[in-house]
């Protein structure tokens, strides 16, 4: 019994760490414009819209996070093998991994933006100076929490994978959850605020991103502020729930029966099916069918 209570505590802590990781990951990727709407930031200058938004997407978010978290976990693992205190080892490993992220962000921004020179898009050095450190700070939070969570899974719950491999697995899952959940909020709601709320962005409006903020020209720090309101927390809840339910169903129900975690997993999936169907019907009832926006009559 005591073991189960301990396991639940570890599960809750891992879930909390994952929630923070998801939120930081999404805000980081939105500031760096690394998630899927990045094509719009790349496309905008070609459509004649010069902007001051960071753009560091080269590979997708999940493999990038897979790399950074695996790197942080691998270094932490090596430090622990050198008898360094685990907490210090995880901090050091994550800090070193963040420098790789910083180099990646710098070269990606310079390379991607320089490729748009023929469309008149300048490389803003002040943007590079101010944004890179901010994405690095967010990336540190995401990497540190994920590596710490992986360490808990091995040290306290006894998962057989070594720390770097677990870092790779959960890094990719973190990127997948963050890029799936948080990105639409940044992509549509932030970049296309001129479009009518409650409708998708017409394909003809591609590249016509909003470039001005409340105080002058918009930059990626404004995007971070915006994403932190809903996209980030939603990504955090998504990743936190994934980690929590994956661990919880195993820790609590494995003791009763070896099939327990499987049965509970299926029940949880069915509960999420009901929740999804409920909100889908709610949206159809409350938003109603699409109505074309009325043309402004003169």
């Amino acid at each position, binding site marked *: 019994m005591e073991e189960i209570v301990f396991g639940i505590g570890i599960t809750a802590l891992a879930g909390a760490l994952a929630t923070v990781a998801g939120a930081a990951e999404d805000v980081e990727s939105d500031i760096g414009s690394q998630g899927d709407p990045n094509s719009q930031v790349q496309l905008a200058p070609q459509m004649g819209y010069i902007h001051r938004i960071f753009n560091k997407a080269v590979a997708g978010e999940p493999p990038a996070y897979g790399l950074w978290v695996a790197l942080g976990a691998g270094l932490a693992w090596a430090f622990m093998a050198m008898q360094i205190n685990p907490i210090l080892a995880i901090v050091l490993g994550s800090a070193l991994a963040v420098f790789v992220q910083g180099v990646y962000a710098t070269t990606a921004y310079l390379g991607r933006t320089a490729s748009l020179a023929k469309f008149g898009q300048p490389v803003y050095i002040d943007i590079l100076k101010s944004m890179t450190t901010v994405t690095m700070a967010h990336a540190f939070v995401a990497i540190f929490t994920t590596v710490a969570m992986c360490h808990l899974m091995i040290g306290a719950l006894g998962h057989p994978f070594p720390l770097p491999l677990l870092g790779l697995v959960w890094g990719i899952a973190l990127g997948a959850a963050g890029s799936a959940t948080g990105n639409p909020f940044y992509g549509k709601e932030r970049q296309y605020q001129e479009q009518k709320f409650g409708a*998708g962005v017409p394909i003809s409006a591609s590249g016509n991103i909003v470039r001005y903020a409340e105080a002058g020209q918009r930059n990626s720090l404004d995007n971070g502020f915006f994403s932190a309101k809903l996209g980030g927390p939603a990504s955090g809840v998504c990743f936190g729930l994934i980690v929590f339910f994956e661990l919880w169903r195993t820790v609590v129900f494995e003791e009763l029966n070896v099939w327990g975690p499987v049965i509970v997993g299926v029940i949880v999936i069915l509960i999420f099916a009901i929740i999804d169907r409920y909100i889908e019907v709610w949206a159809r009832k409350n938003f109603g069918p699409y109505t074309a926006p009325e043309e402004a009559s003169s």
Partner: protein
Amino acid sequence: MSALGGPKQTVGVQPPTGMGLVVSIVLIVVALALAFYLVQMAGVLAVIGIIIGGVLIAFGVHFVPVGGAPAAMGQAPGIATGVAMLAAGAGLAGLFGGAWAAPFGLAVALAGGAVGGGLLMAITCTMVNVIYIFGMGIPAASGKVAKDPITGDTFPEYKSQGTEGHGLPFISWVGGVIGGALGGLGGTLIYLELLDIYQAQLPIILNTTVEQIAPVAVSLAGIFAVGMFLVNAVLAAYNITGTIEGPHDPKFKRFPRAVIAAAAASAVTGIFAIALLRLIGGF
């Protein structure tokens, strides 16, 4: 003709070419023969398991509703990320669960892997709909079919002008969960097959006990399972090209080609994973 030339892409069934089939069968037979030469019957069974796992992953990826960048702007239905990435995320979460349950036997581990992958997709798809509905105010509407085959909801009147649909209809949600479950199942199967081979062979080659070799065997099997997962997921993503809404999408019918390619790719990667034993023994 497309802008780049070549035959026009058809959305329906695209059967594999005769040449492709012959090459795939030859590769699989060669891999099985090599496996028999290296570790006798156990090797053949492991390669067959790896091929089944790879096929399950490639088939599963076709179920996952992915909209890429257009989905992130409410221009197309699906989840706003890449096919291979999302499927890999789900499958690896399954592998995490499956590897954990490995001591309880094949059936429990496989079921654990499948449920793990399905659970990740169930939570992700639900949260995606939460963002679409409460963050962007967009109800789900498919651009490929007029009616949801499961719930019977009609879509055309909910679809915004100038888009190919948006949100995540219930059929796509179900497709995502099935895809995640198949991915988790396939990944776990590959892991368990490799783990068996390594645990049986490594102690003989290195002249150690099973307990001493366990961390090496787990790490090698895990990293190869992750690698093969990505091989098969990327392969399936190339077959899909861009976006897919789920099992109701006409592109779904393209899966036979990916399944055959995945079988050949898994056989080749599988034989490399097994031949590694000889390499370790050589040192």
